[in-house]
């Protein structure tokens, strides 16, 4: 173990890295702590330090296997509609169809460098499971995925894709059968097989180093956004808009604009903040603070922003806007919970946003006023899904549709960049069914096919 990681071990380590103000930390069962520490050490060495050329290897693979850089596309018809320039960051064009591959490839590769022999992961929308299964097939690692039963049912194409890549898919029947339950179950598997298994967590959530590490793998999104904006717009955008479930595409889209605090200083005192380190090899000038770029995190407003505390149910997944501080899945962050601290079931028409927590760094950036949390409801997301499909020829994921939907109420002059975190092929069943049930404006009629 390196000197570096020794300092983050044991009782003197209340001041350890991984705290974003009061958020973050490492709240996991003891059986997992050595794995988490080993991972923090590997993160420092390979990801931040580029030991053995890890980051070079990652960058090459995410280019050649993943298809980066993804384009920044001018959305002409939407720009006409709104009267300001709208650009779309096309993570839907990344291999696998979503930003999730950036992280999955990074983590599976890191697990290889660490000598791990097995991968487990959870998935909500199935995009992270698919990306992980894909990366595991590519890097020859056995892989098991946990997925809530509700999500298995509403994201069948992705279940098949995972199976086709030879991953085991384990449905989780507990609770409402969504992402929260899948995470619990994956943590249990990890605790049982921790000695040779790496848990590829799917968002900027969980114990340190996951929130920082996943952000760094995803930061390629905003690194490219900055370079592409300078090239294509001749300036940085007025705003970057991204949907926030756990917040990985969000942090990926924001990281290069937030600027970087030296994460090492976080170890010197509890006031230290581990925000936005920069992945080695980033182009000059990216990851410098850009305070005049507005960062908008669009949460799932579901059907209503309220929380039914007695029923233990929130008809939304807006933990940044409406949540309160608590501890879940390894980190202190903003949560949808009752006054007593029981986590409530969340809701979104989009499986990938349907989660009662959110990444600790986002919670921190919201408190600091650097990121503005906003939300749109299920219907608005469905409308945006159809709008982008009809007007721009791009079928967005229902998750990304939330970010697109926010344009309807956006009040600036632009240009704005919307992160299209993934493509919507996986969502077609849900969209057709929900659009018909809700009478969504602009939804095509599908009846003609049902004769």
């Amino acid at each position, binding site marked *: 173990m390196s000197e570096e990681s020794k300092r983050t071990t044991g009782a003197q380590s209340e001041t*350890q890295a991984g705290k974003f103000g009061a958020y973050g930390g490492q709240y996991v*069962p003891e*059986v997992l*702590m050595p794995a988490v520490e080993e991972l923090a050490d590997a993160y420092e060495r390979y990801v931040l330090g580029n030991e053995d050329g890890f980051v070079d290897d990652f960058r090459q693979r995410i280019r050649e296997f993943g298809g980066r850089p993804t384009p920044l596309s001018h959305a002409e018809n939407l720009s006409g509609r709104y009267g300001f320039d709208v650009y779309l960051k096309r993570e839907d064009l990344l291999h696998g169809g979503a930003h999730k591959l950036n992280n999955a490839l990074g983590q599976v590769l890191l697990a290889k460098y660490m000598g791990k022999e097995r991968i487990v992961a959870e998935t909500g929308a199935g995009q992270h499971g698919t990306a992980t299964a894909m990366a595991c097939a590519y890097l020859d690692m056995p892989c098991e995925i946990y997925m809530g039963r509700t999500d298995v049912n509403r994201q069948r194409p992705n279940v098949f894709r995972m199976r086709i890549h030879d991953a085991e898919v384990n449905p989780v029947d507990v609770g409402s059968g969504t992402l929260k339950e899948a995470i619990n179950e994956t943590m249990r598997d990890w*605790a049982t097989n921790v000695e040779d298994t790496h848990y590829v967590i799917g968002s900027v959530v969980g114990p340190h180093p996951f929130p920082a590490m996943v952000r760094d793998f995803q930061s390629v999104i905003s690194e490219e956004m900055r370079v592409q904006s300078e090239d294509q717009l001749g300036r940085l955008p007025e705003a970057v808009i991204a949907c926030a479930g756990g917040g990985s595409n969000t942090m990926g889209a924001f990281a290069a604009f937030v600027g970087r605090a030296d994460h090492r200083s976080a170890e010197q005192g509890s006031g230290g903040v581990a925000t936005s380190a920069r992945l080695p090899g980033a182009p000059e000038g990216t990851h410098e603070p850009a305070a005049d770029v507005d960062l908008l995190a669009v949460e799932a407003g579901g059907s209503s922003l309220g929380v039914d505390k007695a029923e233990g149910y929130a008809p939304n997944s807006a933990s940044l806007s409406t949540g309160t501080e608590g501890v879940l899945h390894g980190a202190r962050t903003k949560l949808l919970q009752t006054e007593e601290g029981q986590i409530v079931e969340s809701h979104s028409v989009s499986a990938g946003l349907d989660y009662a927590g959110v990444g600790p760094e986002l919670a921190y950036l919201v408190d600091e006023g650097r990121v503005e949390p906003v939300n749109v409801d299920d219907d608005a997301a469905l409308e945006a899904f159809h709008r982008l499909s009809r007007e721009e020829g791009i079928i967005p994921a229902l998750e990304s549709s939330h970010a697109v939907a926010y344009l309807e109420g956006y009040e600036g002059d632009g240009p704005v960049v919307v992160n299209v975190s993934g493509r919507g092929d996986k969502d077609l069943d849900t969209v057709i069914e929900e659009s018909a049930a809700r009478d969504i404006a602009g939804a095509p009629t599908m009846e003609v096919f049902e004769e």
Partner: protein
Amino acid sequence: MTRSEIRAAFEGGPALVSYVAAGDPSAEATKEYVEALVDGGTDVVELGLPFSEPVAEGTTIQNAIKRALEAGMTPDAYLDLVRELDVDVPVVCMTYYNLIYQYGSEPGPEEFVEAAAEAGISGFVVPDLPVNESEPMYEACREHGLDLVFIVAPTTTPERLESMLDRTTGFVYVQGRLGTTGARDEVSENTPEALERLQDADVPKAVGFGISSGDQAREVVASGADGVIVGSAYVDIIADGVENDLPIEAVADRLEALAAELKAGARKGLPEPERK
């Protein structure tokens, strides 16, 4: 700090630490069950305060927690239940950090620890609060004279063990195997090794995760444990009672019988001259 009641409970020979989830399937039943477990020879009661995301539990206790939450168990109802318990053994609160953190008007552990001490709780086991994050909880426990019990896992490194032992009072919870709670047929072969690592620690060592029979209790004590921790095996009995709609007394009798078997088994694990 006052003398640890929990530690004292280990002084009369190998101790039986018994877990049930509060409110499974009702607060009233839990009262009877805990009293039966104590009648059967339980030396320390570990009473679970149900949290909606019990990541350290296996299926058995997950289901128990679900039943308890559905029956309306809350932190306040839990404290009432503790107040009403008619037992003279220490009661340890086993729960997850978020419930402790949220309790009262200000976020943080102080208010719940204070309320728990007032209700008669002697200590805490908090599986998702590793020693690194335990400072505020540790301070609150110290202030109110409560023990904070840490779990030593098979994966725990020597450095981590050292920092845990610095803060452990009451007893050390030795996690007998990787994974989550749940009754198993055999004692993990790693148990003697786990206990050996703790040989020099001046605090009682109790082994949990998987113990379900008198024979296993004997084996664990013979390996050098000062006590055994049993949960899922009792919860299986409670679940069977729920499934078959058995009266509370019938379930309580079976719990008492299992506790007696475990306690007798644990005693048999002592070398001949030390048995009483």
